[in-house]
């Protein structure tokens, strides 16, 4: 049977307003307001949806991998409720704050340990760091081709067929498995799981592996060091135009007159 791995990242909810966040004293973490649960990174949800669409179409076994430290299991079990067959958590103190290279090393080692997959799916970039590197890193470390920015992924008899988005159109790309694909939001939102599946998923005990289980040495893995996060001062004073809709339209036109030649 076709095998698919989906790599998902747990992130601080990107939709929560920034004014409620604090930057930790060490400058290296963003502290959400109490009671803000972490979520799956949105593009990773799109990647899982792509996997489930393939499962619907041709059948496949979908394994979800997630790496981190102190992972919120109920959040990650959402992937099982949505239709994934297996959840593997990669948890270790060493996995906290890994950069793209370290993360790719851990995920590639996991994929190797599991004997490889026909398709590895990732989100195009994480909702927190927006770096867009891990997918291509996994492919480089596994020595398999990577196709990015998929809006559609299909499996034919011999190849994986991907529609990838271009700035003004799309292209159709084919590669024989094993192949890594990164998903963009055009693939569609992750399906809503039925309540029964949510309850069943909460009873599943996921496999948990640490650095020692994977035999991965992260001592010299860092390529990019975070010095600190900060909130840049960017606010500008907005001049408000008031009045009736017609008066507002007149006011905006006056501004436009001086700006458009």
């Amino acid at each position, binding site marked *: 049977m076709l095998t698919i791995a989906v790599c998902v990242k747990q992130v601080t909810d990107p939709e929560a307003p920034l004014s409620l966040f604090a930057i930790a004293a060490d400058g290296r973490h963003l502290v959400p307001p109490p009671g803000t649960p972490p979520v799956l990174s949105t593009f990773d949800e799109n990647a899982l949806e792509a996997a489930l669409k393939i499962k619907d179409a041709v059948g496949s076994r979908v394994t979800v991998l997630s790496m981190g430290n102190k992972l919120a299991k109920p959040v990650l079990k959402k992937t099982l409720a949505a239709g994934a067959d297996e959840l593997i958590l990669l948890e270790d103190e060493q996995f906290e704050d890994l950069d793209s290279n370290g993360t790719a090393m851990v995920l590639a080692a996991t994929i190797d340990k599991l004997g490889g997959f026909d398709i590895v799916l990732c989100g195009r970039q994480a909702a927190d760091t927006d770096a867009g590197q891990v997918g291509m890193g996994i492919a480089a470390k596994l020595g398999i081709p990577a196709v990015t920015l998929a809006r559609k992924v299909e499996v034919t008899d011999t190849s994986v067929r991907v529609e990838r988005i271009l700035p003004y*159109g799309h292209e159709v790309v084919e590669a024989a498995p094993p192949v890594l694909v990164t998903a963009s939001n055009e693939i569609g939102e992750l399906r809503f799981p039925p309540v029964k599946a949510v309850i069943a998923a909460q009873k599943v005990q996921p496999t948990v592996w640490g650095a020692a289980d994977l035999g991965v040495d992260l001592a010299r893995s860092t390529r990019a060091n975070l010095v600190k996060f900060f909130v840049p001062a960017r606010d500008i004073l907005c001049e408000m135009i008031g009045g009736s*809709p017609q008066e507002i339209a007149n006011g905006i036109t006056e501004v436009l007159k001086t700006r458009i030649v």
Partner: protein
Amino acid sequence: MREAILDKGANMGENKGVLFLAEGRDGGLAKITYELTTAAHEIAGQLGGEVNAALFGTGLTRAVAELARLGVARVYVVDDPLFAYYHPEAYLAVATRLVRDICPSVVLMGHTDTGRELAPRLAFALDTGLCPNCVGIEVDAASDALRLTRPVFGGKADGLYSLSEDEPWIVTIAQKVFEPAVAHEGQAAEVVAFAHRVDAGSFRISVTERVEDSSEGIRLEDATVIVSGGRGIGSAEGFAELKELAAALGGCVGASRAPVDNGWVPANLQVGLTGTVVSPNVYLAVGISGAAQHIAGCSSSNTIIAINRDPEAPIFRRAHYGAVADWREVVPALTQKCRAMFG
């Protein structure tokens, strides 16, 4: 990709300096190329070494001539139909070979569709560090290390990064951050035709079809006026109204992510961190709340005018002019007024 790792450069030079990947467009150079030139000179001015440029594509005569006038030492050119469109394996193979040959300290690319795809591949192939989408680059005078600033958390905050010691450091630069360099007739770079030795037969990824959207009119990044709509527009019909306003202003329509996700507009109209980065003369944000990831795509516009019903909408903290109103009432009046004024 693994082949590229084993393919050790034969003639490792002592050149150092900065290499940037120029991008062509419509026979000339893309705007980002001029901005990269400025960035490369600023970095090389502090780190020392030459500024060299590379350009891959086909039919590059005019683009190469222009690039050679931008004050760079050498222009490495691969002018071959195989490079007419970006293909990750073709571009990675030649970029890896070139970097191994000329050994720059820093490799710069634009954070464009090409740069954000190629840079991670190159960084992993060379096993060095990458900082993508940088809005600030400083050279630490004491250590000669780069200190790189990039937006994170969808543009809600910035992160300051350094890269590990192994060179070359790979950096993609956000669009519209650096002033564009100006070409001078007197300057003439040495133009080197680079032997790419790329064999398309070895590619594992094949592009079987390329489809261009038939969306008419001006491209977003070229528009001087953009009328952008958000979730508040509510429907494709609503966007038709914005299109009329944009037409009256000689501009084009953009969108935040919600209208794209809801299928009201095609994906290529999306302005933001994951869409197009724009800097028009006037950016009219209609029914857009101002999520950080959207602001990151339009904040360098000369004038931002926002119309939103919610006085607390974050867009009003980033706009130069604002009106708290229902767009359905303002836009028709504005369109009529603008037709009379600019028509």
